[in-house]
């Protein structure tokens, strides 16, 4: 069963190196995410859930998508993780020394299918911790409108990284 849920935002600027130099407000956000994720240390299984082009599990050792957002830093291999799962992997690295499952949920997945997917995760045996990559209404604003390919569903989620038992 799911005993703990942590939610973190998923901006590409949390991928390593993407801000170029250190940006204090981003490092503050990164630290808050690390602190929240550290709360998952005691569960048996950590499952990461995030938006993706397709609904499927992604290999935890797939490359980060850094090159899609920061060409010149690294190449952008075709098998790179979606941004949400890439950011999660980068945040987990160095905080938790253990394997995780990466579950992408297709951007266009209807709400009921999302619920069913969640129920299946909740029925998993053992003590499961969930890391949900989502930033809801923080993605909106006159200076940060969604790209044509991004999900368009509004949300009332909190802007800050949080965890709850």
């Amino acid at each position, binding site marked *: 069963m799911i005993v703990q849920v942590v939610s973190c935002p998923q901006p590409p600027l949390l991928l390593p190196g993407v801000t170029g130099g250190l940006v204090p407000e981003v490092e503050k956000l990164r630290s808050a995410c690390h602190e929240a994720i550290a709360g998952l240390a005691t569960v048996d299984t950590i499952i990461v859930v995030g938006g993706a082009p397709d609904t499927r599990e992604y290999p935890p050792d797939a490359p980060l998508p850094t090159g899609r957002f920061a*060409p010149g830093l690294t190449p952008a291999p075709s098998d790179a993780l979606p941004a949400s799962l890439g950011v999660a992997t980068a945040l987990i690295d160095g905080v938790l020394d253990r394997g995780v499952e990466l579950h992408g949920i297709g951007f266009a997945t209807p709400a009921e299918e999302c619920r069913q997917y969640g129920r299946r995760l909740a029925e998993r045996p053992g003590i499961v911790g969930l890391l949900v990559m989502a930033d809801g209404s923080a993605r909106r604003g006159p*200076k940060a409108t969604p790209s044509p390919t991004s999900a368009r569903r509004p949300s009332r989620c909190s802007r800050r990284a949080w965890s709850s038992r």
Partner: protein
Amino acid sequence: MAIINKTPDSFYDHGATFDDGVALATVGRAVADGADIVDIGGVRAGPGQHVDVDEEVRRVIPFVRQVRARFPDIVISADTWRHEVGRLACEEGADLINDTWACADPSLPEVAAEFSAGYVCSHTGGATPRTRPHRNGYADVVAEVVGDLVARAEHVAARGVPRAGILIDPTHDFGKNTWHSIELTRRIDELAATGWPVLASLSNKDFVGETLAVDVGDRLYGTLAATAVSAWLGATVFRTHNVAATCQILDMVAVLKGTKPPARVVRGLA
């Protein structure tokens, strides 16, 4: 290509040339400083006050008429994404349509074709006009831009726009973050290799600001560095707020490339 903003709220000059008299004087100075083209726009590129067609027409069209009358030899570019504005500008003597929002109005190429005007093809990654990029990602931003712009250039040529009047503009910062704009600058020779003339619109843009951590008023040196590199790599038209400085940079690069002789060489030769 000198930027003439007929706007009260543009990011760089904050409405300094909104007034017709000031704008006309700015055109005169740009021409004297070496500009071959003046690019006249009536809508701020970024988010801001809504400007409908009628208001854009009021801002731009009478001014185009004045510029054409006062400067009969200058190439006038209309910076608009709307076919209504493009048509009226061409009727008043505009020679070029700078479609910064990449055929957001699909009727715009037909206007250029009707008047045998030139056309700037842009890449925005599909962005809606006056929106900023948000988490845009590209497997290879240069390949994406080259593919999109070549297809768009062929598209507008097929609609009847004279091929000799078509330019391609990678459109730095539109649908792109700073890394993408840097990569496009670094590899702008790949755009030049398409054979279409490349317009580089770099002037005081955010990618310069983020690269050097400088505010909008302190981006001239960074802009000129990017201009020099782009000219060296084959870009041929430069949209700029700072005409005199840009012309000096371009003259220097042309001499270094060997495509232009130095202006005066006597030292040690007498």
